[in-house]
């Protein structure tokens, strides 16, 4: 058997980039076909293929790192760079929506009544559920840090408990936000206020769900002894993502909920 004379990871050929690309094609063209021909079949097939691709691709990465030992320090450094660059791209994604919000709210047009919030819009009270949501996410930032320290100190039970608590707080945020969406006195169709509010908070909510899912996978892996006190990058990546989600919420709360009311 040939052994490599370097510390890098030359991956096995994999079908998942192809299936992922085709899933993206099916989802986008499926979206257009839904709009014009009223059929959701193709889009749904694309979504199923995307889920299959994600499951198998990430399963393979866990195999390569935890079971085959390919994630040496230089490889881990690359993974760290990758996660940081990805989160940076997400920051820019949200920056666009904040730009849209400030563009419309700093100079409200006569059509809106020349004021912000626009005439006829009853904004949500920032000191009710939105403030609770802020407390929930801040608390989850504390619990995820507790989980990290527990993993580093080899405290298995505490790591499982604090990670589970973090996920529960994330789910609590999602439930509260869903209730707020249902009860809100304005909709996405209510002018630029509705658009900026629901698109910005909506994408944030989606990221909370993604982050909670990532943390849940980490919980399963922690239970199955995948993480060591020295090597647990999957968890660190999930924690970084979670802190990013928390920070985006803080900006949303201050800008849209508080200043924007």
């Amino acid at each position, binding site marked *: 058997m040939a052994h490599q004379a370097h510390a890098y990871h030359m991956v096995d050929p994999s079908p998942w980039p192809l*299936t992922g690309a085709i899933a993206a094609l099916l989802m986008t063209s499926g979206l257009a076909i839904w709009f014009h021909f009223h059929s959701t079949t*193709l889009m749904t097939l694309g979504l*199923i293929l995307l889920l299959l*691709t994600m499951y*198998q691709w990430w399963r393979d990465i866990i*195999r390569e790192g935890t*079971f085959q*030992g390919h994630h040496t320090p230089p490889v881990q450094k690359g993974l760290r760079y990758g996660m940081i660059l990805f989160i940076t791209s997400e920051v820019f994604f949200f920056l666009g929506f904040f730009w849209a919000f400030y563009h419309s709210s700093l100079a409200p047009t006569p059509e809106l009544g020349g004021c912000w919030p626009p005439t006829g819009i009853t904004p949500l009270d920032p000191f009710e559920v939105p403030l609770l949501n802020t407390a929930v996410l801040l608390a989850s930032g504390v619990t995820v840090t507790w989980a990290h320290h527990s993993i580093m100190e080899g405290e298995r039970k505490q790591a499982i408990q604090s990670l589970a608590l973090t996920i529960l707080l994330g789910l609590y945020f999602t439930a509260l936000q869903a209730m707020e969406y249902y009860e809100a006195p304005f909709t996405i169709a209510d002018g630029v206020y509705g658009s900026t509010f629901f698109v910005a908070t909506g994408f944030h909510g989606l990221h909370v769900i993604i982050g909670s899912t990532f943390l849940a996978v980490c919980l399963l892996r922690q239970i199955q002894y995948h993480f060591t006190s020295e090597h647990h990058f999957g968890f660190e990546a999930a924690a970084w993502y979670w802190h990013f989600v928390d920070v985006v919420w803080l900006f949303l709360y201050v800008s849209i909920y508080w200043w924007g009311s």
Partner: protein
Amino acid sequence: MFRHLRTLQQVSRRTLSSSARAQLENKVPHKQKLFQEDNGMPVHLKGGTTDALLYRATMALTVFALQSLLVTHIREFS
């Protein structure tokens, strides 16, 4: 009567905790051996039969959906 309840509590605790312990046993060394076996299999198929089934199902779906898009719907666009 309370002695019976106490015994039931002890028995269920013992049974549950031993079965729970068996489920939470560290399987990583076993997985490491499986995935480091020198059999030339790529990582996406190295886990066994389930891998192959899932792979085939994914590729079948890919081919079917792609042909559905290109053959069925492209006709509508032209």
